[in-house]
């Protein structure tokens, strides 16, 4: 059930109405039921899809392991048992993830070696149907297990809360990746959520509509340019390819941000705050900052459970750089079983290393040249460079074939054709002039929102609450009708899934 489908709209409307009609104490169970239905229901013939069993397994493993770990004292002779149990839980959880996501990748990786040594290649002619959202619910579960192991908080004894924490429907497919000490206490207080809270409701509604706007008006429209240009890259020169890469940057941002924003809005309407996953990432002045603003729940997960255990920054410089690189390689690998994702992650890691290593030198140059580092121009230049790097890195993310990605990047710089900016060639990349104008206005709205978000350092929902009611109404209604009219949807349209659902 996609967030931008009629089915989800009906589902959520029913969930929300029943949520507020039911006795408050029952709400949590209702949300659990709704979450399991959302994830497990496949069709009337097969009410519970086969893939759902892996979610149940993850819940069971997480609950039992956490409870048992919590029973064992953190100090003393039995301490080692906690480690063993944690390892068992992580192996079970990550085992599932690796099995579904990486089996083919590893086989393809080792097959050439086997063949070189005279063996017979292992067949990859099988189809492992990856459970939807597995990367997200596995990271949620393992984060929880590690937190309990670290005695950050106690394990939740009631399995139903653990089940809901792991399967909470707004987050299960594409995050945000929640933490036990953030979500579970809120689930336990669901009965206290006020039925009528105009601010909360309008903030949630705005987030949902804003998410739909980003997805249906921007991401799915701009995808037509991206798909066309990347699909026929050989027909295009530098300007079109650079333009397409910028479009893809906007597409993937709007696509993923929209999912997280809708999740945020849905949760908010039920009185639950989940992590805001994005904070104007393309307004970052460095790659490091970009990762503080992009997919925040994953970045913080990797920081807490990969980077810190590796030693973080409290070690030698070389080790620190290595830790950064490893963390970003893991990040790339998490996004997909493909060399291109690893390269993409590696690029981000390497650039951060370079950034760190050259920092004193750049400071010195700035001092010598009396660079006005606080000026708009300086920041703009830094922001532009950061965006340019992120943009090029996205090419490797989008194009699964490494050599093809290299070729596209090469053409981005080696096939100058500036004239297309002046001969209306830009309107022949997949969107006609009318559609292009709609896209242009929508992207302007996105930029304004992001500037406001960065400036206030709040979610767009919270920014909206602070506005006068008439302004809120005008914005919500305008966005709603923009989605209704200019959204890419309907029978003639093959609904585009959210890109991050694939991860």
């Amino acid at each position: 059930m996609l967030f931008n489908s009629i089915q989800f709209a009906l589902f959520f409307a029913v969930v929300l109405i029943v949520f507020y009609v039911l006795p408050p104490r029952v709400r949590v169970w209702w949300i659990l039921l709704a979450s399991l239905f959302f994830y497990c229901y496949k069709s009337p013939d097969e009410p519970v899809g086969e893939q759902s069993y892996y979610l149940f397994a993850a819940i069971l493993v997480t609950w039992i392991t956490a409870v048992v770990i919590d029973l064992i004292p953190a100090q003393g002779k039995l301490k080692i048992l906690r480690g063993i149990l944690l390892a068992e839980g992580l192996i079970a959880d990550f085992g599932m993830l690796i099995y579904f996501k990486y089996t083919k990748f590893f086989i393809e990786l080792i097959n050439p070696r086997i063949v070189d040594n005279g063996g017979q290649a292992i067949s990859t002619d099988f189809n492992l149907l990856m459970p939807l959202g597995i990367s997200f619910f596995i990271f949620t579960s393992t984060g929880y297990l590690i937190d309990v192991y670290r005695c950050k908080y106690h394990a939740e004894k009631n399995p139903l809360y653990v089940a809901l924490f792991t399967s909470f429907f707004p987050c299960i497919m594409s995050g945000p990746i929640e933490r036990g000490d953030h979500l579970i206490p809120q689930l336990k207080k669901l009965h206290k959520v006020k039925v009528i809270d105009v601010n909360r409701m309008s903030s949630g509604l705005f987030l949902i509509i804003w998410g739909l706007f980003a997805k249906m008006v921007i991401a799915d429209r701009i995808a037509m340019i991206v798909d066309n240009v990347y699909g026929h890259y050989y027909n295009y020169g530098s300007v079109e390819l650079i333009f397409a890469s910028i479009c893809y940057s906007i597409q993937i941002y709007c696509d993923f941000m929209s999912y997280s924003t809708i999740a945020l809005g849905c949760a908010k309407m039920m009185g639950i705050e989940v992590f805001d996953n994005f904070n104007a990432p393309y307004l970052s002045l460095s790659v490091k900052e970009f990762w503080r603003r992009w997919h925040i729940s994953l970045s913080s997960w990797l920081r807490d459970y990969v980077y810190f255990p590796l030693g973080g920054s409290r070690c030698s410089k070389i080790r620190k750089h290595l830790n950064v690189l490893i963390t970003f390689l893991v990040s790339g690998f998490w996004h997909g079983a493909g060399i291109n994702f690893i390269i993409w992650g590696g690029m981000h890691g390497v650039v951060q290393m370079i950034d760190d290593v050259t920092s004193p030198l750049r400071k010195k140059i700035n001092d010598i040249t009396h660079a006005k580092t606080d000026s708009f121009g300086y920041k703009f230049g830094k922001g532009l460079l950061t965006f340019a790097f992120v943009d090029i890195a996205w090419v490797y993310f989008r194009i699964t074939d490494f050599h093809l990605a290299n070729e596209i990047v090469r053409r981005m710089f080696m096939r100058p054709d500036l004239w297309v900016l002046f001969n209306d060639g830009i309107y022949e990349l997949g969107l006609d002039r009318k559609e292009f104008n709609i896209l242009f206005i929508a992207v302007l709205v996105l930029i304004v929102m992001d500037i406001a978000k960065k400036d206030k350092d709040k979610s767009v929902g919270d920014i909206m609450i602070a506005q006068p009611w008439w302004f809120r109404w005008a914005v919500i209604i305008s966005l709603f009708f923009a989605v209704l009219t200019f959204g890419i949807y309907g029978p003639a349209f093959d609904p585009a899934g959210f890109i991050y659902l694939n991860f």
Partner: protein
Amino acid sequence: MKLLAKKKELQNGILSGLKSVKDLVRAVSFLLLVAFLLNIWVIWFIPKHHDGNRMMETFYAQPQNSIDVLVVGSSHTFIDVNTGMLWEDFGIPSFVIGGSLQPFWNSYYFIREALNYQHPRMIVLEAFACDVDFDYGDHGMIINNVSGMRMNRNKLEAIRASVTDVDGIIDFSLLFREYHNRYSELTINDVAPELGDPVRFENNKGFYDYLGTYPITRPVCDMDDEIVPMPNKEEYYYKLIIEYCQEQGIPLMIMVSPDGAYNDLSRGHYNHAREIAEEYGVEFVDYNEYYDEIGINFETDFGDIGHLNYLGNRKFTNFLGEHLTDEYDLIDRRGDTTGLYDSWHENYVYIEERLDNYLLTQTEEVADYLNMLNSLNDNYEIILYVSENRYIIDDLRRYLGLHSISAIRPFDSNRYLICGNVTNILTQDDNGLYYEEFLGDHHLSVTNEGVFFDGTKVDESYYTGVCIVTVDRHNQTVADTVVIDESMVYRYESEH
């Protein structure tokens, strides 16, 4: 102290309650505003198909229990059965609910829906659906045949009968998913649908006069009584229609309209339909057996291979009207003074004037053209002026004198307005405006620059001669714009 605390608690409770009420009022107001705007949005965006939403929209606008003959079926109904003529010549207030390739399962629900608002004295079911070979029509066909119905059980049932899956039911129930992307094709007629169409609502009876001619050869059919079963699903709903009409006590006549594509297979299907109708004691008439009696000329009476044109439908309707008045218990409503049937006369005038306008645009000879102008009724206005101040030859002046405008003279820069036998010389005001008039919601103006209809220039002055703009006030349209000289009619291709 305790009392004070209690008082404060009570005050807080009241304040909180008031806030809740205020919030509730605000939320409800917001939802009402969205619903209001959504309603406007739907009016703007919904496609205005003649055989789709628009026909049903006009059906719902009919005075209750005013329709005596309800005609239901495929496109043959709304193109072949001339409702204006049924009224003017036979006094029958009729209405056509037709849809392109309308299958019986849609006809069935249309009839059910219609009977919620009307109690016709009889129903005519057109049986082209026997001859179609699909159980589920294509996208456009389904839209044409369900989009106009109001959202109720009949509509949902009609959709359910038309599609196979839940997604289809959702798609056709929430049709905005289909038409939301019309934003690039919206016109003023979408935004204000009542503009420019005097027959949009109750004056529209579903009929659409096919203007144009498509010569065809007379269909040859060797088969006589052989039966070819119609598709099972069509048969099921065909029988349901018959049974439902009988339950309701409404006489049903089933007919097949003259069809240039008539062949052995269709004849076989219609024979099956006839057999079933006879089992139920219902009259079945295949008018493809009466070409000569109707007087159909295959050279001139068809608009395309399957449908009659403006000549053909008048012959056929005359034949059908005589049959209906002879065989069924119908009342001649023409003498009615209650006003209930006034809209049928309006419908007739609209249809006839639309044809006159068409014929005017087809005329190329100067004498014929001027004669046609003379024959137009008082609903027409003729705006006339000399183009480019050129000399107008005597012959032309004589022709134009038919309208008592002999005042026109060489180097004449005046504008003339002729309506009926009255000719006015228009004088220019300080703003350069000679004349303006509102026709319904339309605006007609005559200025130094030319003649404008809704702000669009409808004449062309680069020809040498007399420029004539003919305005149909009843149908609120510019019928024709020409420049004529002594030899011929030059026609400016205007969008009006």
